[in-house]
Structure formats: structure tokens, C-alpha cells
């Protein structure tokens, strides 16, 4: 059984290798090879899951060491896997949603020039992500962590001929690198504190390390999580990342990779439990991001960017829950899974819409699409209901629990967090209703698309929306089913809680507000949010060009000025720094050397006057020299 775990990572890796090095022979079969291998890893995952269910609660984890990766002195990093309930959950999510999105991509990328490479990158992503969640030590996790970053870089920049895509890819990688720096320093602190960075020994001894060390590790891990999960202040890359093909946005930038931060924090629960200050930082980041993302999501007219803001905000919920400690870990993961379903579904829906609308992304140019794309409309609609937390659907169960847990934090802090979570729920209802109304309802506001050459085309280029092919609709339907039922299934008998409890531990929170009251409050804000959106976008016609909007709207359109800040402080500052350093290197460091050379040259220019070519003057200096030598010798003798 253990060997299967290694195979789980190896299968998609093999797929990536074959597809990327295979050459043009695989151009036609490539998509199906990639999809097939993703499906194989899903089957392997299910097999392992069945096997795991066959064992009892505490005995479910599997460990396997494949080989010793970096053995240097006391530093031992193994390629070893640890499969417990937490990683199992992720394995199923990654391979399951991953396989569906592979299938979807077969249709979506059918007209692309190089689908083979696309599927190679997707398989590479699957392998790296599985490595991330299966690793049994932090260094191997880091390898997967950077690996998904690479896959994300390659996929965001898949349409490299577009400068915007290439820039977005670079930005994503760089911002992630800042987070990765935090993670790598965290590993260094672990190594100096514990002498190892394997999960088992580190987490088992976390309590002996002292709060200071734990807080340091916790904050550094949080930095890593912020980068990968697009949390404030490292969130700026996610919006731009929507330059990638839509299946990528669905798989990597919604369902799986961006949730790695939540995994990291949950996995390191023992560390965070011992470091309350770090936990405070985590919940703060989560709360701020959930509002930040939601506000940004309200202002965007680009359907994918609106959904990206929503992703940020939903991950904010998860981070918030994970920061609450044992009260929240299970709910963080539960929301992660349900979010994986409905957000992937929403993105695929968005992709389907774009597919039918000549790759138009501006929602102000949609409208009235529900009758043209019924399947997309219904699946998107179910995803919409799930994300806003409509009673009975997935999002309802998971989000509600998080809001409850936030209140249960207790004290002023609990009230603030709870209020933030509630406010977030209201805004979520608002912006999702807005997306829904702009896209599928109202009048048709379709515009002729602009061709690649940049000139506005004639009316013949008006989009002809049509339903997408089966390869695309089937995954959408399956994900919609997941969005509807997953939350309910997980909550029967607290099944999900019991499943994860042996790994993450769980504590019941004592909320100052009753569970029923929280649910009621959530319902109220939900209705308010949706109603406001309907008031704005459902009752009156929507202008095709966005109105100027309030100050907040304008700021939110620009990601609340985060990018401008980055641009002015980091980019401009960095440019000045490097330019001045280039100058310093050339003029100062090199100048000193060249100056020395020049002065030696000048000195020898003067010295050479002594060489006048007259043999007798040379003779004089020879005699003089000899005389000096003799005199010196005599003098030394005398002394």
C-alpha cells in the first residue's frame, strides 16, 4: 500500500515528463494522455482512501521513506511521504477536481496551438501539489511548494506572446518567492531549534521549544502562507494571475494551490497552538483579507477578476478559521473542500461563458445569457448559491461554522472577528449576485470583440453565445453536484469532523452567541447583500462602460491601491537602487581600480624620463647605486 503513495506523485510527474519532452508526435494525443494520467492518480487516491477507511481512527496514517534526499552531517532530509486523513482529503480534492479540470481543458484548449504543453504543465502541477500535501517533512513540502509555484508560473504565462500574461506570471512567481523566503527561514529556525524538520518530531516536541521560537516559526510560516494563498499583504498577484487560461484559474488559483497556505497552517497546528501571538497574526490576516478580497470582488467588471477577489476572500475565511486553533482547523479544511467544488465550478462556468463569447471577460458586455447556455447557467447558479451560503448547500455548512467559531474566540476579539466574518458574508452575497445578474440576466449588452491586431472589427464579430461541448459541461455538472451536496454529506453525523479530528484535534468553541442566532444573522445579511445587488443591477439597466463610481469603487478597481503602492515603493525604488548600484559599481568600485592603474601609469610616465638613452648617465646611476650599497654595507657593519 505504501508504494502506491509514491506512485501517486510519480504518475503525473511521468505525464509531465512525457508530454514536455515528447515532441510533436504527442500533439494530438497529448490532452488525452494527460487527462488519463490525472484520472489514474485519482483512482490511486480512491484506492488509498478505501484502504484507509478499512483501518481504525488512530491507525490510519501511512508513512513511507523512499530514499534519503540530502544527507549532510546532522541535516537529514528524506523523500518520504506521510498520508493521514488531512493529506488524504487533499489528495482526493486535488486528483478529483484536477481530473475534472483536465477533462474540461480538452474541450477548452481544443483550438490552442500547443495543448500538449498545457497538459504537461497541468500534470506537473498535479505532481507538485501532491508532493506538497504528501511530504513528511517541511523541506520536501517546500519542494512541492515551489513546484506548484513553477507550474503556476508556467500556466499563467501560458500565452506568452501576450506581454500581460508574461508579466503576470513573473509577478506571481516573485510575490510567491517572498512568501517562500518566509517558509525557508521557518525551516531554518526549525532546524536550529529541533535539529530536524520532519513533521513528526517537530510537532511532537513543539511545546519544548519556548513561545518565542514558536512565534517566530509561526509568523514565518504565515508569511509563506500569505504568498501562496494570496493573503494580504502578498495578495497582489492573484488578480493578475487570471491572465492564464481559465481551467488554470479554476484548478490552481481557486481550488487547490492557493489553499496550500491553509494546509500549511493546519499541518503545523502544534506550532500555532503554542504561539498565541502568531495565531492572532493569522486571524488578523484572515479577517483583513476576507474583507479586502470581497471589496475588490465587488468592483471588478472582469468576471475572472471578480471571482479571484472572491477566492481571496474565501481563503481569508479559511485562514481565519485555521488561526482560531483547534476550534477552527476542521472547519477551515471543510470550507476548503467545499470551496474547491463551488469555486472550481464557478470558474469553469466563467470559462464556458468566455468560450461562448469570443473570450470576452467584461461582465458589462454579457447579459441575458441564461437561455443561450442553459447548462452553464444552472451549474453556475448552483455554485453561486453554494458560495453565498444558501441553506442546505455546501457553503452554508462550512461558512456558518467558521462564523460561529469566530464568535467563539471570545472577548472583544471574538466580536470583531465574528462581525468581520458576517460582513464578509454580506459582501459575498452582494458581489456574487452582481456577477450572476450581470452575466445571465438583464438585456444583451454584447459588443463586437476586438481582434488581435487591435482594430475594432465590424459587426460580424458580434459573439454568438453557444453551449460548450460535452467535455466541458460534464465536469461543470459534476462540480455543481459537489457544490450542492458535499457540505451536507460532511455534516451528517459530523462525519468530516470525526474524520479529521485524529490529525488536527478539535475543541468545541463556546460562543457567546447561540448557533441558531449566528445562522439567523447570516441569513439576514445574505438577503440584504443579495437585495442590494438586485436593486443596483437587476432593476435598472446596466451601462456598458463602467460609471466613474465612488472613491471606494475606484480604489477597489485598482485592488485598493495595493499595486500602486507596490509599484511606487518596490518597483520604482528597486529600479533606482539597481541603477544607482550599477553606477556605483562602474564608477566607484571599478573606478578605484582603474584609478590605481591610471596613477601607476602616470608615475611610470614620469619615471621613464630617467631613461634618456645616454649610456654614460646609466653608468653614473650604476656607480651611484654601487656606492650606496657599499656604504650601506659598511654602515651595517659599523652598527
Amino acid at each position, binding site marked *: 500500500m505504501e508504494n502506491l503513495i509514491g506512485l501517486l506523485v510519480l504518475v503525473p510527474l511521468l505525464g509531465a515528463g512525457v508530454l514536455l519532452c515528447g515532441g510533436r508526435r504527442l500533439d494530438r494525443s497529448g490532452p488525452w494522455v494527460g487527462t488519463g494520467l490525472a484520472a489514474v492518480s485519482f483512482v490511486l487516491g480512491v484506492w488509498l482512501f478505501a484502504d484507509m477507511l478499512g483501518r481504525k481512527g488512530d491507525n490510519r496514517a501511512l508513512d513511507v521513506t523512499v530514499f534519503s534526499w540530502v544527507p549532510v552531517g546532522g541535516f537529514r532530509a528524506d523523500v518520504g511521504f506521510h498520508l493521514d486523513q488531512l493529506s488524504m482529503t487533499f489528495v482526493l480534492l486535488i486528483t478529483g477536481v484536477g481530473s475534472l479540470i483536465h477533462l474540461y481543458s480538452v474541450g477548452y484548449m481544443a483550438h490552442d496551438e500547443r495543448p500538449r504543453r498545457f497538459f504537461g504543465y497541468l500534470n506537473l502541477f498535479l505532481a507538485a501539489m501532491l508532493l506538497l500535501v504528501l511530504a513528511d517533512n517541511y523541506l520536501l513540502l517546500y519542494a512541492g511548494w515551489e513546484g506548484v509555484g513553477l507550474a503556476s508560473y508556467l500556466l499563467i504565462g501560458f500565452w506568452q506572446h501576450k506581454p500581460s500574461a508574461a508579466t503576470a506570471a513573473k509577478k506571481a512567481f516573485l510575490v510567491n518567492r517572498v512568501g517562500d523566503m518566509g517558509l525557508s527561514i521557518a525551516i531554518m529556525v526549525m532546524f536550529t531549534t529541533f535539529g530536524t524538520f520532519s513533521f513528526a518530531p517537530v510537532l511532537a516536541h513543539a511545546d519544548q521549544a519556548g513561545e518565542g521560537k514558536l512565534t517566530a516559526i509561526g509568523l514565518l510560516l504565515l508569511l509563506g502562507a500569505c504568498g501562496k494563498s494570496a493573503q494580504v499583504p502578498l495578495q497582489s498577484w492573484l488578480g493578475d494571475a487570471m491572465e492564464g487560461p481559465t481551467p488554470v484559474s479554476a484548478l490552481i488559483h481557486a481550488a487547490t494551490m492557493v489553499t496550500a497556505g491553509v494546509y500549511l497552517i493546519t499541518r503545523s497546528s502544534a506550532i500555532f497552538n503554542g504561539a498565541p501571538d502568531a495565531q492572532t497574526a493569522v486571524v488578523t490576516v484572515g479577517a483583513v483579507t476576507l474583507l479586502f478580497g470581497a471589496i475588490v470582488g465587488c468592483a471588478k467588471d472582469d468576471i475572472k477578476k471578480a471571482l479571484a477577489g472572491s477566492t481571496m476572500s474565501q481563503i481569508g475565511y479559511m485562514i481565519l478559521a485555521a488561526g482560531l486553533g483547534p476550534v477552527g482547523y476542521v472547519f477551515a479544511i471543510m470550507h476548503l473542500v467545499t470551496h474547491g467544488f463551488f469555486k472550481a465550478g464557478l470558474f469553469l462556468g466563467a470559462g464556458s461563458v468566455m468560450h461562448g463569447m469570443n473570450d470576452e471577460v467584461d461582465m458589462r458586455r454579457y447579459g441575458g445569457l441564461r437561455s443561450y447556455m442553459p447548462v452553464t447557467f444552472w451549474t453556475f447558479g448552483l455554485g453561486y448559491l453554494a458560495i453565498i451560503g444558501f441553506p442546505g448547500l455546501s457553503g452554508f455548512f462550512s461558512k456558518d461554522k467558521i462564523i460561529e467559531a469566530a464568535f467563539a474566540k471570545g472577548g472583544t476579539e471574538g466580536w470583531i472577528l465574528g462581525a468581520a466574518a458576517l460582513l464578509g458574508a454580506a459582501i459575498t452575497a452582494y458581489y456574487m449576485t452582481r456577477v450572476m445578474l450581470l452575466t445571465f440576466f438583464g438585456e444583451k449588452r454584447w459588443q463586437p470583440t476586438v481582434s488581435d491586431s487591435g482594430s475594432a472589427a465590424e459587426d460580424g464579430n458580434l459573439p454568438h453565445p453557444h453551449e460548450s461541448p460535452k467535455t466541458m459541461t460534464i465536469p461543470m455538472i459534476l462540480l455543481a453536484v459537489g457544490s450542492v451536496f458535499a457540505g451536507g454529506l460532511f455534516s451528517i453525523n459530523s462525519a468530516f469532523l470525526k474524520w479529521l479530528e485524529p490529525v488536527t484535534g478539535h475543541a468545541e468553541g463556546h460562543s457567546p452567541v447561540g448557533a441558531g442566532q449566528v445562522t439567523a444573522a447570516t441569513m439576514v445579511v445574505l438577503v440584504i447583500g443579495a437585495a442590494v445587488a438586485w436593486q443596483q443591477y437587476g432593476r435598472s439597466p446596466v451601462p456598458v462602460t463602467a460609471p466613474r463610481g465612488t472613491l471606494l469603487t475606484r480604489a477597489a478597481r485598482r485592488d485598493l491601491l495595493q499595486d500602486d503602492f507596490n509599484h511606487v515603493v518596490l518597483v520604482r525604488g528597486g529600479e533606482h537602487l539597481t541603477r544607482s548600484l550599477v553606477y556605483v559599481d562602474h564608477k566607484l568600485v571599478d573606478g578605484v581600480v582603474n584609478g590605481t592603474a591610471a596613477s601607476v601609469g602616470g608615475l611610470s610616465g614620469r619615471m*621613464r624620463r630617467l*631613461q*634618456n*638613452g*645616454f*649610456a*654614460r648617465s646609466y*653608468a653614473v646611476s650604476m*656607480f651611484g647605486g654601487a656606492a650606496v650599497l657599499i656604504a650601506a654595507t659598511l654602515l651595517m657593519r659599523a652598527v
Partner: protein
Amino acid sequence: MNPVNYLYLAALLFTIGAAGVLVRRNAIVVFMCIELMLNACNLAFVTFSRMHGTLDGQIIAFFTMVVAAAEVVVGLAIIVSIFRSRHSASVDDASLLKL
């Protein structure tokens, strides 16, 4: 006879030779003065050899003679070829070999 006197003689000859090298312009004369200095040294070597009762000085004197002979061959050849091209044997005229 006191061998030290030979040393005085050697010093005298060397000084004459040195003065000749410094003040005379004719290359041949300068050359002869150099020979004078070399022979002054030889005289000093032989004297020391006598004084210390070892043969080292005499051996070096022979070396010096050999080297001097070789030097004369090369040197005179150079002087002759310079004289042929410039019609002058003045050492100050041959001052082009400088930076």
C-alpha cells in the same frame, strides 16, 4: 711585499677605469676603460686569493677573463656595426634605445 699594496693598485686602476667610462665619449675608449675595471677586479681577486691562501679568487679571475673575452667579441662587433651605420663611435649618439 705587503699584498695590501696590490689592493691599492687595484682600487686605483678601477677608479681610473670608472672615470674613463663616465667622462669619455668614444665607445672604444669606454670599452677599454671597462676592460681596465675588470682587470682591476681580477687583480683584487688574485690578491685576496694570495692573502687567504685559497684558490677561489684565482678561479674567479679566470672566469672574469673568459667573460671579458666574450664581451669584447660581442661589444666590438656592436661598436663596429654602429660605426658603419652612423660614422661615429660616440656613445652619446647612440641614444635612441629608450621609451
